[in-house]
């Protein structure tokens, strides 16, 4: 690994991107419309961290990644990636980062997968000894052996994605940007990809910025979660804290010995009654035990379960909160 130049892998200060679009305003008239895709985002990602970068469609995720990888010029603010200004030092930066856009391919369609890797070795000018070593490692990690000789067009989606990830990692980048690396994959492939990413992170200490729609990716891989919406940063913190902070309400489901009118428990609300079964929703600050104790004081409980809030629900609530 290259010696760190600055302590952080990525630093953004008030990073913004404004697009001016010509929009129809009547039959012949066109007016300029300003679209603030990214609005003053400040964020620091330390080295060797995996951060989940999520938000609804059009939130500005891709625009941010494009500014960090040297594709787009920021309208204002600054970004430093691996200690470099992305646009000014594009070629230098390109050697030190790896990028996978799940919807676009980095590989040569008609050539065997192995040939794509060989071409990338030339493009990135990786010495062949280093290349062979990295490729051998990644081949094992992503289990590519069975289809290295197949043309990319003949690969399944899961195989292709493993190939894409390999292609982004072959030049030993310090930082990788993964945009939807599990999109469209089946459960088994998703699991394999996540496992491999975890291993790479552990063994190589790479910094990973992961954008995804699949929150299971984030829960399994990213200790830190950043959420943006409408170009603004609306949450940045440990993924584990999310449920506590955003009032992810839990639900105590009790099966009573006999059916009765909705229970009245301080700190909890009865949301549903179905025969002897009742659903009691309570805030994260209240313990399940105290709710249960209150219920037990009023009725005989035969059985119970506690439902954790789904991370999807929490994130949906955050989006809605930011919009109102």
């Amino acid at each position, binding site marked *: 690994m290259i010696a760190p130049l600055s302590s952080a892998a990525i630093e953004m200060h008030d990073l913004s991107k404004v*697009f001016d679009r010509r929009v129809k305003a009547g039959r012949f008239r066109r007016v300029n419309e300003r679209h603030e895709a990214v609005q003053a985002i400040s964020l620091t990602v330390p080295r060797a961290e995996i951060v989940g970068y999520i938000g609804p469609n059009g939130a500005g995720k891709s625009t941010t990644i494009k500014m960090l990888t040297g594709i*787009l010029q920021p309208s204002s603010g600054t970004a430093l990636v691996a200690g470099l200004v992305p646009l000014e030092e594009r070629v230098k930066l390109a050697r030190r980062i790896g990028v996978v856009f799940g919807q676009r391919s980095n590989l040569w369609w008609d*050539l065997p997968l192995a040939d794509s890797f060989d*071409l990338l070795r*030339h*493009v990135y000018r990786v010495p062949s000894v280093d290349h062979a070593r990295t490729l051998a490692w990644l081949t094992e990690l992503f289990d590519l052996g069975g289809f290295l000789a197949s043309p990319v067009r003949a690969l399944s989606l899961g195989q292709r994605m493993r190939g894409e990830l390999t292609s982004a990692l072959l030049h030993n980048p310090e930082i990788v940007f993964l945009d939807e690396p599990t999109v469209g994959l089946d459960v088994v492939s998703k699991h394999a990809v996540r496992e491999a990413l975890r291993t790479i992170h552990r063994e190589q200490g790479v910094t990973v910025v992961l954008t995804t729609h699949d929150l299971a990716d984030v829960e399994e891989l990213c200790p830190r979660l950043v959420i943006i919406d409408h170009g603004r940063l609306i949450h940045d913190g440990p993924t584990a804290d999310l449920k506590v902070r955003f009032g992810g309400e839990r639900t105590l489901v009790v099966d009573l010995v006999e059916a009765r009118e909705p229970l009245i428990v301080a700190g909890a609300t009865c949301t549903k009654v179905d025969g002897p079964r009742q659903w009691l929703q309570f805030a994260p600050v209240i313990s399940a035990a105290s709710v249960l104790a209150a219920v037990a004081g009023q009725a005989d409980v035969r059985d119970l379960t506690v439902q954790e809030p789904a991370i999807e629900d929490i994130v949906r609530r955050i989006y809605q909160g930011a919009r109102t």
Partner: protein
Amino acid sequence: MGELRIAGHLIWAKIRSEAQYPASLIAHLIAQVLVLGLDLLAIWALFLRVHALGGWTRGQVLGLYAISGTAFGIGDLFVSAVERTAEHVRLGTFDRFLLRPAGTLIQLLANEFELRRLGRLIQPVVVLVLVLTSVAVDWTPAHIALCAAMIVGATTMYSAIWVSTAALAFWIPSTQEFANAFTYGGQYASQYPISIMGEWMRRILLTAIPLGLVAYVPGIELFGAANPMGIARWMSFVAPFAGVPVALAAGLLWRAGTRHYRSTGS
């Protein structure tokens, strides 16, 4: 040089993938040789009626045709793929070139290389060899250098026109037809002695799109051909270098285009 080596590897890869469909490749090559054969037939037919064109004999016109065609063929093979820029900008796939540690133009050209474009080069080269060995060219070292300079100069010029018109795609999404007027139109115009054309057309070919400078003007000296416009002899030796400033301008336009792309996105 490093960039050219990268391009070499990418081009070789494209040839290998194209070779997976050999029938298509061969059919394309044959079709292009036949289509270009019609050009030759047109010149032949013309000289059944007239004995000279702008004072040039059939051999001399064929020589000009072959040099211009060879240069266009080389440009077509290696550079014309730049017209795919519009597509890459529209689909956002241009991003990929910006993400890799090499120049965007050279990556694009190498990635879009197609061996089947070789078809445009085969016929002019054959004609060139036949004409240059049969037409009375005084093969002094100066004339050998001049002939080479014409081919290099014209190739540079065609390539520059391709790159410039393709670069417009960074601002205006569909410029293909407009671009073709300059590239294919220019090629057609530079096959013939420009002295036969109208005043304004001659001016364009000597200044704005100076294809006349890399073909006709040095051709006068090389073939010892008629010079009704009275162009100075030294001009014949200097004119092929007109490709250099045009290529530099094209490079600047490309750079401005990529800059525009990076500020507006796709």
